[in-house]
């Protein structure tokens, strides 16, 4: 009863909205899209890699979209608040979400909070950073395989410092544990910096991080890279194998993407995706992203949507298995 009332009000609102917009049919709207600035909501705090990437890419938006993209920060709940705002807003392409694996896949898949592929649609992926497994250099193993053998022989001896529950380090480590059966102490730290500090200080043995933060420590010999959790090797670490090469099928890509509310018309999605593709090919954007230590790995709505859905279903299974 109440729900139908809600729906009726929404429909009425939509109707009034359409009338005041000149009663345009949806396809006509899509052709003219965008007629006003587009808002991109970033659901996490300022200055992080998502914020920087989004700002760099959208800095040239008006050249390719015909309208500027305005960035709004709506941090809170690890990204859940901004995600919910976008999922609830009108599916007209004017309100978009800057998606990340944590709030767009893991939280909805494992914990049923925030919004995932059931409530949002893919526009495109901008790029990603794989998790890299790193260890102190003075441990009795040098490679990922040796580490697994050591952990099997010494259960609950290795201390793995993760960067927070279900984060870039914790989730893949749980997947590795599930696949290989190794048992370690998985200690939560408050983000990448503290986890790294714990490993450097010898309070933890291993951690998982992104190449931008770990590279100087690999170079100085204070850390050893064991495996890259990607389908291919990392350009900056040509000698480090992927986990797949070492026989463990775990991939963890911390992606940055653009998402839209479910029900956004396909022509609008296509228009946005094309504009974002051109933005990511812009010279100034490419050079800025390079300075962050990343690269552009654009994927269109269909390819990325499929990848996202697969990742979501896989993590849902994992969540169920781990919570038993």
């Amino acid at each position: 009863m109440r729900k139908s009332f809600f729906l009726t009000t929404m429909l009425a609102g939509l109707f009034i909205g359409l009338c005041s917009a000149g009663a345009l049919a949806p396809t006509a709207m899509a052709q003219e899209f965008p007629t006003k600035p587009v808002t991109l909501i970033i659901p996490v705090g300022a200055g992080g890699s998502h914020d920087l990437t989004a700002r760099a890419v959208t800095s040239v938006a008006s050249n390719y979209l015909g309208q500027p993209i305005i960035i709004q920060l709506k941090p809170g709940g690890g990204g859940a608040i901004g995600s919910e705002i976008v999922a609830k807003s009108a599916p007209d392409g004017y309100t978009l979400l800057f998606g990340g694996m944590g709030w767009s896949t893991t939280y909805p898949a494992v914990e049923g909070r925030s919004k995932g592929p059931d409530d949002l649609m893919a526009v495109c992926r901008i790029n990603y950073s794989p998790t890299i497994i790193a260890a102190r250099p003075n441990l009795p193993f040098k490679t990922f395989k040796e580490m697994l053998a050591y952990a099997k022989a010494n259960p609950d001896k290795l201390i793995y410092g993760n960067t927070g529950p279900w984060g870039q380090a914790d989730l893949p480590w749980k997947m590795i544990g599930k696949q290989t059966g190794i048992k370690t102490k998985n200690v939560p730290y408050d983000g990448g910096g503290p986890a790294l500090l714990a490993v450097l200080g010898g309070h933890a043995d291993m951690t998982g991080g992104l190449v931008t933060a770990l590279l100087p420590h690999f170079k100085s010999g204070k850390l050893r890279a064991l495996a890259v959790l990607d389908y291919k090797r990392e350009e900056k670490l040509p000698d480090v194998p992927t986990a797949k090469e070492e026989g463990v099928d775990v991939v963890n890509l911390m992606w940055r993407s653009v998402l839209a509310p479910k029900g956004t018309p396909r022509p609008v999605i296509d228009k946005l995706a094309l504009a974002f593709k051109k933005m990511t090919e812009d010279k100034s954007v490419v050079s800025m992203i390079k300075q962050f230590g990343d690269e552009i790995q654009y994927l269109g709505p269909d390819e990325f949507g499929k990848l996202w859905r697969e990742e979501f279903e896989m993590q849902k299974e994992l969540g169920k298995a781990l919570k038993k």
Partner: protein
Amino acid sequence: MGLFENLANGFVVALSASNLFYCALGAILGTAIGVLPGLGPPATIALLLPVTFRMEPVSAVIMLAGIFYGAMYGGSTTSILLNIPGEAASVVTCLDGYKMARNGRAGAALGISAIGSFIAGTLGVLGVSLMAPTLASFALKFGPPEYCCLVFLGLMMAIYLSEESVLKGLMMGALGLLLGTVGLDPVDGIPRFTFGVNRLMDGVDFVVMAMGLFGIAEILCNLEAPENREVFKTSLKGLLPTLEDWRQCWASVLRGSVLGFFIGVLPGGGAIISSFASYALEKRLSKHPERFGKGAIEGVAAPEAANNAASTSSFIPLLTLGIPGNASIAMIFVALMIHGIRPGPLLLQEHPDLFWGVIASMYIGNALLLALNLPLINFWVRMLKVPYQYLAVIVVVVCVIGAYSVNNSAWDIGMMVFFGILGYLLRKFAFPASPFILAMILGPMLEKTLQQSLIASGGDFMTFLNRPISASLLLAAGLLMLTPLAKSLWKKQKG
């Protein structure tokens, strides 16, 4: 190359016209945002990051660092004038600073905090240039058990802050610990006490809580007694601390600086713990501890010196290990990365002009801040002459904007009002608010580090006693708890 040669080269970099300009710009911006509650240094630095994309890396860091330590100078201003701590490290300054202002000594309080900050900042920079690498290895020695014991010691000190009743202090501390458990649990990420409200997932925001508990509550209390306005009749003559003030607090400034410098090296919460640790230390050492909380100048000088020294030494983990110790430093880290410079063990060899240039700029920035803040005191004190009915409205408006700016959400305004009313009630029943708020900040740290220690040790509590640093911290906490007991027993026996 010797130290002085390095430092001299650093000064050459820092004294170039453009870097001098960026240093001044950063210091002024920092003071401004320090004075305005809400938008803190991390958010400001994040907003300015895109501007630094096209700047020289040294200039970028000099400006951003200026914002960070400038805010430490500015943050005490609202604490002293209006009882609103702009950031966690200035909560303690409210205790005696605001009392001094009410006693007509706002100028002296602001003066001692500016000069104390300058002395501490300069000593801190000197410390950084002399022993950065040594201190970095000290910070590395701090694992979860050490942090856990440090936070525990800090909690003991926080309770010691309560002006009159230790029992009331303990009660408020316990309440603060409980409030600190709201949000996601640190091990499994399971929401606790959030009642399905997404806004509570991240816990209660400190800035919002502090503005309510201190600022709004203060206004509510003042509205109740409108005749009490004569407290703000500050004569413009007593703007600077007198010789007598100096005699009382020069040692406090030095002790605060040293304590702040060492605790500040530890990533996460260094500045906060150092500010009230130094307050507790002064109260303990003072011959007249009863003056504390009623406008003792040492109670302003020591924590202000401590938080400034701590903000300076918190650069050490970044510059030597490449690890940001707090949110503001993390932003500076990002600024460096954008320029393709990766702070870390190799920074000193790869980019010596950056390292020493930034350090030299901090010497200059501290001098600039002193020159900027002393003349401003006159202006701030005059502000108190604004009739209270107007001043109160302005303060409420600034607080509302500040609360909104934390997460761009109206929810936080509601939270601030809630804590304002709570703060008013607490005051009516003479419960101290500072142990409450400090326990709220320290609680999650205590829980996290306790969990980390016990997971790593396999549930063995001996991990806290087997390690020398954590064992001595625990011993200190134990002594702190037992001395009042011993004292009263001693008195009883005598009597």
